[in-house]
């Protein structure tokens, strides 16, 4: 794994750690969801998807199929901080955002896998 990939892998790891730690101190989602104005099912789906996506992304990072760039790291860092500081009503937005972010990374990785071109277009302006 190259250096930036490892950094990214650390961030993904941090996201998981932050989410799990956060949940230790939160009531279960049946209580949270109404506060957030979503259904518990929707929240479960969002978080489960994100957790699965994280895993897939992490795996791709390990195999260097994704070439991460500094902007990706920075973006991830920002999301992580946002998540750590988020209040309960802000959480769902953060979950959705994170899911989208990871999904975008996975899509980019798909491009790499199929086209053999290293890209990180969404985060790299060049």
């Amino acid at each position, binding site marked *: *794994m190259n*250096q*930036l990939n490892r950094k990214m*892998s650390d961030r993904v790891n941090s996201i998981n750690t932050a989410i799990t730690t956060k*949940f230790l101190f939160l009531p*279960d*989602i049946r209580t949270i969801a109404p506060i957030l104005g979503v259904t518990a099912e929707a929240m479960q789906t969002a978080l489960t998807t994100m957790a699965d996506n994280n895993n897939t992304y*992490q795996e791709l990072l*390990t195999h260097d199929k994704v070439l991460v760039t500094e902007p990706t790291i920075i973006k991830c860092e920002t999301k992580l901080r946002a998540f750590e500081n988020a209040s309960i009503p802000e959480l769902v937005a953060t979950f959705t955002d994170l899911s989208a972010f990871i999904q975008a990374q996975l899509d980019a990785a798909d491009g790499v896998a199929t086209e053999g071109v290293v890209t990180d277009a969404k985060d790299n302006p060049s």
Partner: protein
Amino acid sequence: MAQSISRIWWSVLLLSFFHLTSLQGQSLYLEALDLVNLLENNGVEVKIVGDSAATYELLKKQPGQPPESLYNFGSQQDSFLLQEETTYAITNKGLKGIDLTFRYDTMYIQRSFTAADQVFSIDLQNEATFFTVKVVGGFGVWEQTINKYLYSNAQGIIQANIFNRNRNGQPIRYNFTRSRALSEENPFLSKLFPTTYFDIPSWKDSIKLVQQIDNTVKTIERQPTAQALDLLYEADGFSATLLPSIEQITKEYAEPAITNLAAAQETVSSISASQSAAGELDFSTTLITGLADFVLDRAQEEFNYAFMENLRKRLDDIPELGILFPDSKNFLENINLPNYKSLLISAREAFVDDLNLVGIRLPELLDLPKYQHLDTVPSVINMLTVYNMVDFAYRGVAIDTIIPLAYTQLLKRRKEVKKRSNLALAEKLSGTSTLASFSESIDQHHKLLNVVYDSINLKQNKMQAAYIKAFVDISLDSNQINQVKQIYSQYSSNFNSLYRQIRTGWDTTAVITSYLQGELAYQYILAAPRVENYEKYFGTLPNPLQLTAAGLELSDIMLNGFEGQPNKARLLREWDQSVDRATKALEYLLDSFTPTDTLAELNKALQNITETQRSLRTDIQTDIQTFWEAKGATTFDIKALEYLAGTLQDPEFFFAERQLPEDATLFDKLNARRNYVGNVEQLVLTRMDSMAAELKLSEQSPLMQKMRAQPIIVTPLFNSATDSLTTVLINEAANLSGTLSTLRQDSVSSYLGAIKNTTNFARTLEFTAHLMYCFKGDPSTGKKWLTAEQFNNVMSSQLTREAYLGLMYQRLSSLNLGERLSSDGVANLATSLINTIGDINIQKDSIRVRRKRDESLGFRDYYPFLRATIGFLNDVITTPIFAPRPNRLQFTGNALPLTQQFGVLRNIPVISTQTLDLFDNLSQREYGPAMANLVQLYETIAFRTDNPCDLISEDSCSAVRRIKTNILRYGTFFAGVASAKEPGDISAAFAAAAVPKGSSRTKRVNMLDFGLNSYFGGSFGRENAVELNETGVFPLNNISLSVPIGLSLSFKTSKDAWGSWTLFAPILDLGAVTSFRIGDDNVEDLPKLSFENILSPGLMGLYNFGNSPFSVGAGWQYGPNTRTVTVNGVDTESSAYRWTVFLGIDVPIFDFYTVED
């Protein structure tokens, strides 16, 4: 170097000073009292059960309902671990019911019982696989069986909330809690906290109490050294706030000379007065006395002049003298030597200055090129450290600050030595194939580390994702989610902390290979270019040797871990296991929420493997009888098969399981058994194949067919893929670490001793500092140290004593010096320290009084503190504190001191005594003894051991001795002149140093000796008077007192010869004038006292007896005077000579020339 050391010390001091003002700390004494309060506030009091060595029970007694009548415990030995059996019998007749909560790890049992009969017993039974909680009472028997391998034997708490329902049905609670305390191996705390708590208002409170106690113990145990040291830096009257400037220090060193200027002038003037009177000779002395005095005075004068000339030359020639006595050197370089007598007065000032500063100048010797490598020599490092400690005290630094400072200093020194060792190794290895292959291996290790890291990271990610899913799983109820959270919080702190440890410095592993090859890690650098780092990497061309050295250092950290921490490979394994445990725990928990009976599955698997094992054993035996014996297999092969069958007997079989770690799960045990049986099967098959080949069989035995058809798969069912890889990594790291250490041993071994020495000495100082911390006083009282009264109070109550010593033991043990501490050792050190503190406090008070009176304070005032501190350090080193191989709580072995663990510390007591004495003597202006201390310390620099020629300097043995002799000789002379109070003292100084002393021993121990010698004894001889032989009087026999003075040339026939031989040419003989002649009535009784009377040249051969001043010899002597004989009234004169045999005492006067053996 000494200057740079000095700079480092000062920077450390200044840093410590800034710490002083901000840090306050709780003392161990208060912690102990708090702990006791904690118990008492929870309504707990201490009850001693059995003798004093037995356990204590912490009880809260209810009025009228003593707990011991309520609960009757079957065993005092019961442990919280699920490995032991315990029965709790509850015999209270009024008991109506019991609510039982059994909590263990992730498992809960909660039951409520009511009773028709009031007798209960809770029975905790332990079997190989199962653990049973059985409650027997009037309601009958309730039993719950748990497969204990599902749960690791981690800490946990069993609680039983036992209700006694009153007549109105209201519950009355009596609770007990058992917990495995952290402190169970602590001989003091284990007595105090037997882990059983009764009647604490609720079980939540009891858990809280247990946790509070554990936290206190943890805090004490894990307080980092740096923090403990900071706590010691509190300011008081003696602290670094009194730190003088460098100018002040220099002034202070010279202080004794300045303050005693008047005394010096007085001495000088008396010297002058004596010189003016020196011209008057007492002419009334006899001619002989006058002659002797004249000769002696002249000789002495010559010697004095020669001495001064030599001194000037030596100060130039011997750089050691120049460094130790620079002012004297400057002075003597610029004077006209023949006038030395009149100039001595001014020289004296230079001598005194030099002597006062000689203490701080000694380490400057190490600036000389020939000594520069010596700072890697353990004895020199120890000397410098002790020396610096003493030097600090001399400068007025607070005593309790000195030890932490010295500790910090040693760590810095070790870092330097390590750096130099790596540079030296880099130089030796640079460009060699050894380095290339080592670097290649490191690269491979690094790659594998990354592969394993990535795998575990993925695994952790998956595990965390599983927890996230469980947290948000709406099919689980709140209680179940809470259980998930509980498990997660239980495991996450461990794997998170391991993850952090692994990540720390992980990046550095990426650059090692390039560094080892002497190159920057371009790949690493180019991966993340930043403008701000450009200069850092590409500013100057890096020195390849420095990079290689850095690579070696980083390799060391990667392979051996940093500062006693586990290496990356081990951390990866711990992390891996921790992640596995968290994964399994969640799996089991989620399984337990579903109807699937994992437990039943596991037990089935266990049953299966046990059956396989038993059937394989029977099958082998059957196969032997039905097949192999019939085919004519050899006895050897048949016995081999029987042997293999034997390995499947139950005890051996279970042995495989017993090899597993304590916290092995059922899965681990299953795997162990499977692997064991699988391996035996493989061995049986291999043996049978070779037997078949030997017997040329075309068919296979029935067992062979069976085994081939259904082989046992040895691959463990639940083993993680990374498990074997981490083992490979750990072994690889161990091998590479071995390679690195061999390279070091081969190439830079001299540094290894130094590194080990500094580490060990630093650890000793660390230990001492922590010990001192344990005696820190109550900050609110303003007392720095515990007072003797407080200490005695603590010791007088059993509860506080055990708490205090227990916390102390915990603190000191956590430093992990490699051996278990003995409780006696800790108690002895405590006593020694409290005495030291007592001494210091008395001195402190007296100094406070003197300060109030505005009296000036000097080194002498601080000296008792210094002596006490160094003395205490020596106590720490020499007090036996380790108990070798103890059996848990029994410390019956012979306790051993720190020197046993760290041999290099042995010379510290000697060195510290010499250093203390040097400064003590200098402060008292006892320069002579100070010179002796100085020479001893110089020997520490020059000689490796007590063996005089086991050299560590680059000089030859005799050169070192010459330097030593010169330091002593000229130092003593300076000392003599400096301490002179009257003219005689100056002469004595010259006499002591300038005039070569004769000693009868000199000619007996040295190979050659030439000097002016005298003998005192008796001679028996035959005397002839040449012209008087016809008179009939001569020759005649005589016995006389003989005191010949003349030149002697002595030699030994061999180095080991006992005595020596002397060729002696007497010139004068004072004894001859007193000779009397046997049977000579005609000779005047005594000759007249004239020069002729004593002139008596001759030649003698003498043998000098070893180990005594006696000599015997024979020879010929002329004179001493003419003989006058009156025959027939005519006086006839004639000169006389005699043959003589002589026995006497050897009295050398001067040695001119000596050749040592």
